[in-house]
């Protein structure tokens, strides 16, 4: 699985290095492995100093909505 965590892109420089922020801690990561262009505001997964993927924000939001529905419906059943 390998430890890789979501971070927000806050800056990109000419050498294809992005500055990412993880809850107030920032680091420079290489974008050399990113298949698609990255823009400021994207959420990326970073692993040992590289960004390796973008998080699909819509998908994440849908998952969170689904979870909300799951516990809402269970609360309703017990209610």
């Amino acid at each position: 699985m390998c430890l890789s965590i979501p971070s927000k892109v806050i800056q990109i420089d000419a050498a294809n290095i992005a500055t990412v922020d993880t809850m107030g801690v920032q680091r420079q990561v290489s974008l050399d492995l990113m298949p698609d262009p990255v823009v400021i505001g994207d959420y990326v997964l970073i692993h040992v100093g590289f960004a390796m993927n973008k998080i699909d924000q819509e998908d994440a939001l849908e998952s969170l909505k689904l979870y909300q529905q799951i516990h809402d419906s269970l609360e309703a059943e017990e209610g």
Partner: protein
Amino acid sequence: MSTLQLQDLYQGFREPKTIQALAQKIHQAAHALNSPLRIMEVCGGHTHTIMKYGLNQLLPEKIDFIHGPGCPVCIMPKERIDHAIALAQMPNTILLTLGDMIRVPGSKTSLAKQRALGSDIRALYSPLDALKIAQENPDKQVIFFAIGFETTTPMTAAVIQQALALKLSNLFFHINHVLVPPAVEAILSDSACQVNALIGPSHVSVISGAQIYQSLAVRYQMPIVVSGFEPVDVMQSILMIVEQALQERHEVEIQYSRAVTEQGNQKAQEMIDAYLEPRSHFRWRGLGDIPLSALQLKDAYKSLNAESVFKAFLSDEPIDDHKLCICGDILKGVAKPQDCKVFGRGCDPSRPLGSCMVSSEGACNAYYRYAEVALRSVKPIEKKRATA
């Protein structure tokens, strides 16, 4: 909820109510299971999530975990760890590696102990640092001992690319990158293996794509769910596995859809293919030799290959674990840590005899540390449903 905040990507997937709700749904669904589910979570990161968040305590008895090969450090056979130490002992050498490799003992000593004796051994956060260190130390030979599953391999490849572009003549690579599907195949193919479902690794899958598990699902007729690494992800994946089992499906599903696709990161895959190729054999600690399960530098890059350049210092004599070590059986779910004669009697986290004890993600290591806590009854999820 219209825009995603970074916090959501953490807290949203650790939400207690969601975890409890999913646990309840799993209990409800598992009632109808005819036979137990023995789920292997392949990667150490998932073992870590299960242990840290106590997810195994929330599941019905019909669902059991068999902890997988753990991590790239756990599976490193002793003779390869000895390679790292031998390289570090060479004069004028700086040996670089990632994290836990520093601590793991080989047949006689560890990199940490060797460092205390004066060798220049450094733990890097990123392999990119190897480039800087090589440039800053032109009079030294700098060797990067590369470890990792598919997640970490493209990063090594990217660094190799930069090393070539910078024409660095003093940076060498000792490649120990391994592949997950052949190892899983080796475990599942043993007829005694008890595993009947898989939680697929999160980030290996980001790189390689979920496609790599397809043949396993078909050949072994088992549900495989590629899961994120947060507790909600794992719980949802278990629910998906239960549902597959109930419907007698044997498919590869992606729970971690916010990050994993069928095809994976093609650019990263191409980066790997440019410099690395499969190695015909590689020994995995606890599992033995598995063909085509690891990578090596292509011949064209022999001049960077520490295994070629420093061949004279390196022995390939296999060094087996203690004969009483039953890690292989534990990995296949045929035995539990407590069944091992040396578990806690000669083998413990500070003196690991086998791969399952080596790092905090190994089954024996986790059992050793958590078994002392007699489990109190958790919030009675089952009881609630019965009285509804």
